[in-house]
């Protein structure tokens, strides 16, 4: 290139980047730089300048009908797409309405960018109209948060926010944007590099620890892999498959790890934990080598820590060093991205004895203790309904759930063979999550069948988002597992509170079908179990959104179960 041309090219580049822009233009341009193609939000006073730019710029914005709907949709989008979900709201009540979603994303490690409007800098701290201290409120529930005080900081903050949200252990980042900052003008120059000396996640495993793990596998007689969300978040499912198969080690997943290993594979023992499968829990309990890849030893998984995997050498791969040794003493700590660690493990060929006896032992457990439920000839069993959904979607749907019994049945009876097809609120257990999350998931995968499996109670927490389905003809299939109760609460009251059903039974419910009709969405109520499959089939084949109100056995319990305070070896309801 000649000198002149080079100079010219540089000048052009400078012209493109060093542009005068308002703060809100910078916000939107930063989103473009980060490859964001959809945002979920709700406007209001403090964020109006940014909404004005959204109007002008034509970036795709989905208007929720409540900010909680917007943030859960952004979470669902993030979980399925692997990209950061972006949510934009106004100050004060708009921002406080997304607090639940931020906490949810934090505990389940979902990359989320929340942009909250804020009152102007000169009135911050004066209890101005719609002022809430969002940086203070979200400090403990964000991976990091910012308040932008100077328009000139916007590009750097945006770049850092996306980097922090999406790397290492992903998580939510909130950016608080005072109104005057969004209208002030500055030069836009999107940084190429990130300068965050305090944030340097370790993603490469220590070779010595990998060696130790290889040696431990060689010695082991009863090894088991526990696969968590970290496998999915790192995109390491196929590496996990190679690892498990070449080493011939059985795989148990966590609730959030469903889909990280195909459930129909022979080596899969299914989900462990409070309502996990008997064999999965017993495999953890009896193992002599527990290889945790990307799970955080959550209490719903471990049960009583005193009885957890008492004879196991514990290896733990986690990109967040703080998770290693937090709940369980760890013999082989591997701070690393899950995929990276698996790649390196797969590069070393190690012999082992095939663990024949162990597999036979576990197979016998599986044969003797399958999941069970009993038909009564009168009502539709919720377990049966979930089996039908699995069959009628050929196991290929993206399934989102709310929180409660239906969530556990979905986890138990839908067999996930593919990564990123399962969207559920695990750590926070957020009712109201499932339906808006399905909306986000559908935007991430427009061609996929997305089924939202929702409780009759949880649906009523965020059902206003039916508007989005109506407005955009979004083909989400809503399955209400209607037991006319707060099923999970009722189950606990039955088991631990002598059947005192305090505020857990619904004598009165809305007519969900009519409700759907109000939004111009076809609805089907199914009371007769014999009709269930046909209606399901018909509804799933329809083009647009559909709501099903399946009346299921109302006093059904989720089994098997590890009661609170009990260990894996003390499961109840393993057999009829």
């Amino acid at each position: 290139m000649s000198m002149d041309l080079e100079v010219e090219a540089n000048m052009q580049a400078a012209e493109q980047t060093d542009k005068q822009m308002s703060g809100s233009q910078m916000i939107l341009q930063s989103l473009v730089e980060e490859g964001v193609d959809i945002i979920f939000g709700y406007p209001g006073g403090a964020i109006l300048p940014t909404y004005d730019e959204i109007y002008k710029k034509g970036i795709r914005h989905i208007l929720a009908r409540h900010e909680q709907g917007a943030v859960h949709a952004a979470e669902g989008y993030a979980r399925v797409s692997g990209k950061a979900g972006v949510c934009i709201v106004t100050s004060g009540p708009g921002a406080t309405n997304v607090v639940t979603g931020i906490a949810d994303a934090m505990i389940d490690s979902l990359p989320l960018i929340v942009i909250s409007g804020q009152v102007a800098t000169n009135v911050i701290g004066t209890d101005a109209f719609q002022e809430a201290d969002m940086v203070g409120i979200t400090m403990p529930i964000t991976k990091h948060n910012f308040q932008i005080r100077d328009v000139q900081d916007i590009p750097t903050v945006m770049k850092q926010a996306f980097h922090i949200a999406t790397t290492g252990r992903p998580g939510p980042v909130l950016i608080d944007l005072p109104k005057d900052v969004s209208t002030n003008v500055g030069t836009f120059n999107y940084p190429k590099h990130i300068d965050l000396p305090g944030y340097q996640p370790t993603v490469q495993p220590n070779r010595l620890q990998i060696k130790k793990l290889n040696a431990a596998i060689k010695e082991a007689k009863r090894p088991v892999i526990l696969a968590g969300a970290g496998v999915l978040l790192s995109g390491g499912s196929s590496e996990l498959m190679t690892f498990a198969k070449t080493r011939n080690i059985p795989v148990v997943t966590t609730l959030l790890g469903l889909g990280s290993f195909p459930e129909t594979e022979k080596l899969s023992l299914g989900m462990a934990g409070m309502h996990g499968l008997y064999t999965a829990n017993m495999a953890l309990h009896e193992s002599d080598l527990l290889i945790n890849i990307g799970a955080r030893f959550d209490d719903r998984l471990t049960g009583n820590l005193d009885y957890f995997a008492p004879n196991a050498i514990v290896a733990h791969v986690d990109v967040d060093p703080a998770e290693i040794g937090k709940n369980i003493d760890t013999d082989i700590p591997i701070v690393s991205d899950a995929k990276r660690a698996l790649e390196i493990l797969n590069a070393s060929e190690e012999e082992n004895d095939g663990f024949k006896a162990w597999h036979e032992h576990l197979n016998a457990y599986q044969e003797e203790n399958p999941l069970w439920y009993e038909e009564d000839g009168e009502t539709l069993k919720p377990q049966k309904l979930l089996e039908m959904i699995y069959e009628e979607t050929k196991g290929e749907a993206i399934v989102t759930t709310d929180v409660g019994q239906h969530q556990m049945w979905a986890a138990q009876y839908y067999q996930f063979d593919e990564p990123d097809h399962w969207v559920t609120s695990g750590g926070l257990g957020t009712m109201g999550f499932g339906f808006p999350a399905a909306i986000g998931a559908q935007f991430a995968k427009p061609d996929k069948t997305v089924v939202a499996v929702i409780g009759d109670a949880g649906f009523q927490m965020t059902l206003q988002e039916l508007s989005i389905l109506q407005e955009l003809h979004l083909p989400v299939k809503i399955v209400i597992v209607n037991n006319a109760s707060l099923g999970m609460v009722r189950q606990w009251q039955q088991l631990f509170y002598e059947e005192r059903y305090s505020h857990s039974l619904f004598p009165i419910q809305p007519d969900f079908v009519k409700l759907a009709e109000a939004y111009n969405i076809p609805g089907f109520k199914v009371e007769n179990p014999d009709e269930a499959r046909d209606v399901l089939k018909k509804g799933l084949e329809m083009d647009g959104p559909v709501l099903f109100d399946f009346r299921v056995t109302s006093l059904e319990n989720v089994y098997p179960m590890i009661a609170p305070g009990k260990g894996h070896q003390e499961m109840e309801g393993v057999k009829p």
Partner: protein
Amino acid sequence: MIRTITATVNNSSGVLNRITGLFARRQFNIESITVGVTENPEISRMTFVVNVDNDRALDQVIKQLNKQVDVLKVRDISGDTIVARELALIKVVSTPQNRSEIETLARPFRASIVDVGRDSVTLQVTGDHQKVEALIDLLKPYGIKELARTGATALKRSSKSQSQELKYSFIQ
């Protein structure tokens, strides 16, 4: 067990809030925190004296601190040879009759009288935790009217430790 931890942090608004919030919600017991700017005005140094039950809790304190984006470096310096100092201002009841007695008492501690009133004197002492405690104990019988003390602030010594004993003590 009592541990001394230092952290260098970005000198940006809200950092102290982040750290104290973290300690509170993770149920870490802090005996003291001191903060001050370092030789680099963009970076502050915090010194925490924490009371933890076991190694796992200590491990968590350090790891959780490290997770904070604004925290640059965390060190548990309890096992190292360090210089750790506190400052205390002690207002003691005193009459003209016993003032010199108090002065004599303070001398070995290299405490100085920084304010004198009609019925009280204020002493300033710097030193490690034990030294400050010891002086306060000695002054108690006279009647302590007011007491203000900083937490410990600490730096690693440049010279390596000579013996094991020294390694685990704050002795000057």
